[in-house]
């Protein structure tokens, strides 16, 4: 059963720069496939270039899905990273 969670981006810079790096680092720790969806496009959350190519700005609504052996842990870690960095709510 894949994990899926919606986030509303509140960070002023959106998912750029440091926040993008942190999310990619968080996702890369897990074996599961993790995807970030925004405006109908899906990208691999382990790919810095994929994430940055979406150009997610402040106020965007995104969905993150994790699927694989450690999907629950992956989703928890990513949600924590979002919260501690003040990225999303």
């Amino acid at each position: 059963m894949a994990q899926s969670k919606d986030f509303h981006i509140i960070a002023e810079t959106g998912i750029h720069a440091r926040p993008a790096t942190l999310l990619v680092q968080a996702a890369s720790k897990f074996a599961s496939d993790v995807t970030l969806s925004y405006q109908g496009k899906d990208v691999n959350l382990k790919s810095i270039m994929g994430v940055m190519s979406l150009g997610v700005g402040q106020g965007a609504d995104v969905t993150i899905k994790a699927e694989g052996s450690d999907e629950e842990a992956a989703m928890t870690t990513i949600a924590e990273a979002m919260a501690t960095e003040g990225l999303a709510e």
Partner: protein
Amino acid sequence: MTKNFKGIAASNGVAIAKAYLLVDPDLSFEKTTITNVAAEQARVDDALKASSNDVQLIKAKATENLGAAEAEVFEAHLMVLADPEMSGAIKQKIEDDKINAEQAVKEVTDMYISMFDAMTDNEYMQERAADIRDVTKRILSHLLQVSLPNPALINEEVVLVSKDLTPSDTAQLDRQFVKGILTDLGGRTAHASIMARTLEIPAVVGSDQATSEVSNGDIVIVDGLTGDVVVNPDADTLATYQKKSADFLAQRAEWAKLKDEKSVSADGKEFIVGANIGAPKDMQAVLDNGSEGVGLYRTEFLYMESDHLPTEDEQFDAYKAVVEKMGEKPVTVRTMDIGGDKHLDYWKLPEEENPFLGYRAIRISLDQTDIFRTQLRALIRASAFGNLWIMFPMIATLAEFRAAKKIYLEERAKLEKAGTTIGEIKLGIMIEIPAAAVLADKFAKEVDFFSIGTNDLIGYTMAADRGNDRVAYLYQPYNPSILRLINTVIAAAHKEGKFVAMCGEMAGDPVAVPLLVGMGLDEFSMSAPSVLQTRSLMKKLDTAEMKVLAEKALDAETNDEVIQLVVDATK
């Protein structure tokens, strides 16, 4: 084969070492068709891995030399190299199109670069395009098995040879291994030259031909005292320069012994020999060279290195850090000198025909007083932590000084009322406009001190820009016209019992120092590495003899005549 050429002597000393060319190698290749897909894909994996290893090392070196924040860009490079989508796309291309790894890397990275470059409204993304270009060069270098220069990875003694050095290049340099610097471009005041002097690395810049005449591994002599360069010297030449290098180091060691001594003339008159700084980070060199004060703290760098007008607290922190380090020794802080050739991205000033004669320095401060008041408050607060003097730049008239002083007194009164501790602040002006120099006797009644800024004073007096090669010959610091202005200012100040400093390059110039000692200048402020040399020179000078010399120089006719007078009197 031995080659000789000449450039501009930019940093003292003589370096002899193998050349290390900081020039991009040829990364061109042909598109080819391949049959063994797996082998080609393995080449990609190997190149990515080798590139990551390089970047890890560079990152570690940058962290050590520059700090974690500056090294963060390399973390971005590592993430690009580890990007599964990018490596996946490259391998997919090799499989689908049966092309060589080089071509596949180029096609995929070009795709990303054009995607990020197209985001023209997003500066951050455009910088990432630059990161990808950088990373691509590195991957290709490994595929093509040519070595990319990595200044951070140098591990033997070298002379660094390049077209020009950027701040990020110099930041990666390891002083232990980089013995000399040789460039095609630049002048004495270029970034590379200033860094070289700060790091005490001998340097010759602006040689035009360094990168074309020198190959990796050539033995190169860089004479930073004369600007001479010798490539692959014969045994005799090598021995001559080895001796010259040793003599210079011995001389410098001799100067170093004067670090904790006072600056006194042969007959026992004391002077202050101080250093000029642009930021708190320059204080290490100030202390290492035994400076007896900071004669010029150029605060505009606080504004230039920020992306917003620095707040009162940000400024306070910087000023406090500097005065605390100097303790009782005086620190002269010049209020902001933006305009002229110094601009801010976040605060656009009007375009002007003639910016050096336009809206700059105190002229801006007195017009946009909010910004000036913020700076004055930060300075007044910081005065409690040391011996802080405030200096206004580009003062032309008494009315300007009085207006600036009035604002200062208003802010001071507000802070006093709020119970802020305030130190004993001296208030002075920079003498760089001839009008102020001529009227120095009147100014001397109202200011606490003068500081003569010779670079601009000479430029404005001779009406010549020394950066303009065609008129650079007019930059004549020893021209009797300039010396008379300086003498007028010193005499006017002393008549009122006021203090006179000099903070231009002339203050550390071995030809000018005897004359200035003769005229009775109180403080000499210069780039930190010149402090000990000047102290050493002063020890040999007798003030009565120098007074006679100065009188002769003031009565001379030309710049060259004055040089000859000084040479004859001090040999």
